[in-house]
């Protein structure tokens, strides 16, 4: 809720992210050879106008992912790496999503609506959950530290014949 409040009230930051998303996705399409015109938070490619609203930036997926990672008991530096790495991956995936949408939109508007619905809500949740589970499996691993050679393991206690049966 804190992260959400930060971005909700910091309108300038959200708008800057929208402009950056439009600029980068429009720029990639231009590099790929499609006639693209970027204008603020929107761009048009081959007659298809795409408006980047806050949901299109991947911001909310990042907020949810970061919240879960930060709330989970783990070492601080692993949390920081998780949040930064996860945010970068989600931004990249979001850009891929926008590129796919634009490419599909050039062919069929109807298909674009369907893919927008499917890719926007559902697959991004899949990525948030997947990234969280991957981070969790890494965050739970013990630090690479060699145990002293002569130290007996505390967990493994040798069984004695006198030990009463439970």
């Amino acid at each position, binding site marked *: *809720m804190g992260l*959400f*409040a930060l971005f*909700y009230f910091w309108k300038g930051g959200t708008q800057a992210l929208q402009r950056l998303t439009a600029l980068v996705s429009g720029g990639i399409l231009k590099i790929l050879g499609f006639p693209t015109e970027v204008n603020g938070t929107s761009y048009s490619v081959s007659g298809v106008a795409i408006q980047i609203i*806050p*949901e299109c930036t991947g911001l*909310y*997926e990042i*907020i*949810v992912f970061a*919240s*879960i990672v930060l709330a989970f008991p783990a070492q601080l530096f692993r949390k920081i790496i998780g949040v930064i790495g996860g945010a970068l991956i989600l931004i990249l995936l979001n850009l891929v999503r926008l590129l796919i949408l634009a490419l599909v939109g050039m062919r069929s508007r109807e298909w674009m*609506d369907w893919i927008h*619905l*499917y890719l926007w*809500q*559902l*697959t*991004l*949740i*899949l990525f*948030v*959950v*997947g990234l*969280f*589970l*991957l981070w*969790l*499996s890494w965050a*739970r*691993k013990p630090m690479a530290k060699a145990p002293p050679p002569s130290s007996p393991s505390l967990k493994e206690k040798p069984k004695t014949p006198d030990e009463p049966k439970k």
Partner: protein
Amino acid sequence: MKIWVFLLRFFLFLTILFLLWIPVSPYYTYLTLWPLTWLFPLFFGIKPDLSFSSSSSAFWESAFTNIVPFLALMFATYGWRVQWKKRLWQIFLGILLLYIFRVADRFLGYWLTRVGATDAQIAFAEPLLYFLIQLGKILFPILLWLLFCFKDSPALLWFREK
């Protein structure tokens, strides 16, 4: 390895349930609007215009639901054979909670746009509405799944055992 199997199962359930949800979504939309027909007269003394048709805009609006990812997460998680009764109850409870959240965001949305809320009311309700709509779509299914399955699911326990 198990993590990939789980994600694959999740993806398959997500796709299948999404396709199954398409014909259901207009009915769900109606179900989320219905409480407003008695909530608005109760709170504001007015009857809102909630005329609903299965036009494309209403369809798209209703299709954005978080019930599909919640169900996909629950179905993809192991442990159904052992505790299917518990899982069914969890699914019922989860759907009920998601439905209540959806009604709450509809109530706030109609209140802000159709009733004519004051500036102070807008200042209070607007962030709440955005929270419910924008974050709720992603956060609530994951949160409910973690709440229900975290402790007793092998799919989530494997990393603890290792």
